């Protein structure tokens, strides 16, 4: 069924270099694959594995220079894509090959209505005189599940939710019924419940039109749910390929096997890492915390109150790890920001070691900041790019003079770097010289520098690759038992905290809907929302 003579797209021995300051770096190394009509091929790999570059060449989206196709053939329906001039390339893009991307907000032009942006596909391929364009666009929007499409056609991208924006992108891609749809991490930026809807939509459209689907993802569940065939890429090379079920149930290559064990969503195989001795003492006690925002204060719309955090109470004991789980907009990050006094609450109290956090001022507030630290989602964005690692880590000591005499700073930076699994000589480098996982380790070292008692992690591993995610969580768990730390661990990914948190709080629209012991929550969730979160993890295609 995968005979290459039936394939609509065949890539043979593709090698792509990127030239950076004269040094060619090999992004894609001798990669071959093909895809047949009606088939779904998943390209699985972590960031930097070359998966996006290999599909980018198919659409001619790799700039040359700095990109350089060194060798290989890209055959689409008998046409060699490497030999196309600009005009013939343009005739294929959007009409016969279409693409959707990871972050639909960034990939839609913010200043034009979605209707106009979809209509451009018809215009670009001189297809705009066939029927009423507006009506066709509205039909497309309706087909991808945008409610009230006739009116929403005139809305701008920022007026849609994340999932709806991806639907708009899909509408744009399928406008002219392409032969191939390339989906580059289409659900990575979306909540799990939205993710399954988008995947379902893609599956339905494929059945309707018989298009080939090439899906790029780092997410094993998504891969399993969609794939007929899988190729696994690592370091620019294809390390494994075959039927989806075979690759998942019987991985041959060592990298694939490692990837499969990094899967946090399997039932626990290892014993949960023990927390630091949970002592009876209450470290943090949050009482009836609320944060309300006033929306639409314009003179046309009546004032509405948005309850980002609505009457939330919980406690963290010394040595305990509390997971706060919820989808975007559930209020979990607002809680983190208030606990660190980065934002003021509308009402409520939070007692840290008996003292009300929101009443602290001046010197007392400074002392509190030292005892509670935060690790952010985006380690790159939360570090000053012009400071080297040494100054980033030692900055807390310049603020809190009593922690460490200046003479000991250098030694302590090295100690901290080694503690988080980096090397002492990394101290003189700058943040951009590290990988995402390494940067998050630096962020953790910086948090540890002020010798805190509580660390608040806000989506601290969400931006990282799966295998790195587990490494960082492992590090946090290890530090917990060695240093007796307590954590508030905020995430949208429920399974990831299973082996890490002692207790989990599930939040929805600002409210805590479930708060219980981790094992109990997974084995017998009581709230319907928790159940839906647990069930929205997609099922493998072959098991349906």
């Amino acid at each position, binding site marked *: 069924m995968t005979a290459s003579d039936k394939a609509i797209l065949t890539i043979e021995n593709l090698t792509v270099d990127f030239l950076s300051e004269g040094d060619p770096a090999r992004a894609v190394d001798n990669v071959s694959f093909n895809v047949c009509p009606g088939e779904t091929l998943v390209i699985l790999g972590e960031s930097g594995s070359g998966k996006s570059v290999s599909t980018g060449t198919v*659409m*001619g*989206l790799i700039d040359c220079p700095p990109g350089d196709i060194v060798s290989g053939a890209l055959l689409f329906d008998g046409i060699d894509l490497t030999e196309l001039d*600009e005009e013939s*390339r*343009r*005739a*294929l*893009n*959007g*009409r016969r090959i*279409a*693409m959707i*991307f990871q*972050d639909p907000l*960034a*990939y*839609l*032009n*913010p*200043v*034009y209505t979605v209707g106009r*942006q979809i209509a*451009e*596909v018809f215009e*670009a*391929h001189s297809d705009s005189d066939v029927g009423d364009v507006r009506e066709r666009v509205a039909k497309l929007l309706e087909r991808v599940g945008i409610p009230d499409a006739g009116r929403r056609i005139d809305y*701008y991208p*920022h007026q849609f939710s994340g999932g709806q924006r991806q639907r708009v*992108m899909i509408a*744009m*891609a399928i406008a002219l019924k392409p032969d191939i749809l390339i989906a580059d991490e289409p659900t990575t930026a979306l909540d799990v419940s939205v993710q399954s809807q988008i995947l379902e939509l893609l599956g339905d459209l494929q059945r309707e039109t018989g298009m080939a689907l090439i899906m790029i993802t780092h997410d094993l569940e998504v891969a399993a749910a969609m794939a007929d065939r899988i190729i696994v890429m690592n370091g620019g090379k294809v390390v494994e390929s075959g039927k989806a079920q075979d690759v998942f149930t019987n991985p041959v290559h060592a990298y694939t096997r490692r990837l499969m064990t990094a899967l946090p969503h399997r039932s626990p195989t290892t014993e949960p890492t023990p927390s630091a001795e949970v002592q009876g003492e209450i470290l943090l006690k949050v009482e009836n915390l609320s944060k309300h925002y006033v929306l639409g204060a*314009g*003179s*046309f719309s009546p004032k509405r109150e948005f309850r980002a955090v609505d009457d939330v109470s919980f406690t963290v004991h010394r040595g305990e790890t509390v997971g706060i789980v919820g989808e975007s907009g559930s209020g979990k990050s607002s809680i983190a920001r208030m606990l660190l006094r980065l934002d003021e609450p509308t009402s409520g109290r939070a007692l840290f070691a008996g003292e009300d956090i929101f009443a602290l001022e001046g010197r007392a507030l400074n002392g509190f900041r030292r005892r509670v630290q935060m690790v952010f989602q985006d380690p790159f964005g939360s570090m000053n790019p012009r400071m080297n690692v040494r100054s980033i880590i030692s900055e807390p000591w310049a603020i809190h003079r009593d922690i460490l005499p200046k003479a000991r700073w250098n030694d302590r930076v090295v100690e901290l770097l080694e503690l988080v699994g980096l090397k002492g000589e990394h101290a003189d480098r700058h943040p951009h010289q590290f990988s995402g996982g390494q940067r998050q380790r630096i962020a953790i070292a910086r948090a540890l520098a002020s010798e805190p008692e509580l660390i608040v992690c806000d989506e601290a591993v969400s931006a990282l690759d799966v295998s790195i995610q587990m490494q960082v969580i492992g590090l946090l768990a290890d530090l917990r038992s060695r240093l007796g730390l307590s954590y508030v661990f905020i995430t949208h990914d429920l399974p990831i905290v299973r082996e890490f948190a002692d207790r989990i709080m599930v939040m929805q629209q600002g409210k805590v809907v479930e708060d219980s012991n981790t094992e109990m929550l997974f084995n017998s969730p009581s709230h319907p929302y928790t159940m839906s979160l647990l069930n929205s993890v997609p099922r493998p295609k072959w098991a349906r």
Partner: protein
Amino acid sequence: MMLGYIGRRAYHSIISLVGLLTLVFFLTRLTGDPSALYLPLDSSLEAREAFARLNGLDQPIYVQFLQYLQNLLSLDFGQSLRRNRSAIDVALEAFPATLKLAFVAMALATTLAITVGALAAARPRSIFDRVAGLVSLAGASTPDFWIAIVGILVLAVGLGVLPTSGTGTGWHWIMPIAVLMLRPFGLLVQVVRGTMISALASPYIKTAHAKGMKRHKIIFGHALRNSLLPVITVAGDLATGLINGAVVVETIFGWPGIGKLMIDSIIQRDFAVVQSTILVTAIAIFIVNIAIDLLYVMLDPRIRY
């Protein structure tokens, strides 16, 4: 919503206007006593006192100031000492000449700069980009008085193809406009090029390529619209500079605009005229600023006031 916004802006503008007029009132009085300029050197003490009394200059300065404010309320902006006419009329008469000059110069500079900057950004490091970079840098950094004087020397005095100064024919417009637009053009090319390069690297440009759109439509349709906001900010700033009276250029080319009037009146200690020119230009600048804010809203649907 929009009207409320304009109302709020107008209200804030009036506060700053009163502050500005106060400052100008006292600063002009620091330049000295007008009677020293307007009466013959050997005029008698009585004559000087009579002149002062006639023009209210004998009163303590705070009384003069209160009187000025009171007159403002009844839209009386004072008399020109020099011309013996209503000061505001003198200022309003000179203003159109400046406005025309500023408008033509800015319109030409902006249109040219957007075209050149966008084309340069479309092919960075091409020959065109390098030449555009060089020309715009030269334009932005050449002092206008120097280029004006060299222009007169070469084109008017030397070759005799253009008039040296004054108004009248279309030929009179060429040199003042060319000199005036040089700096805005140079600065704007650089701004357009920079914002266009980052707009062209945006993800939505990739989407446009994936849709199979024509290259020029991607550049001028998708990228340009998104890169216009910072351009408008800078252009607005430069435009207010020109409305404020291109003092140097108007003086060199003898252009009867508000800039020249302002500098003449300061030298002549014609207080009421100085105050009136500043009032007129300040109001014009406030209007330009509000217009720019409204342009923002038109260009970017995400901005709402």
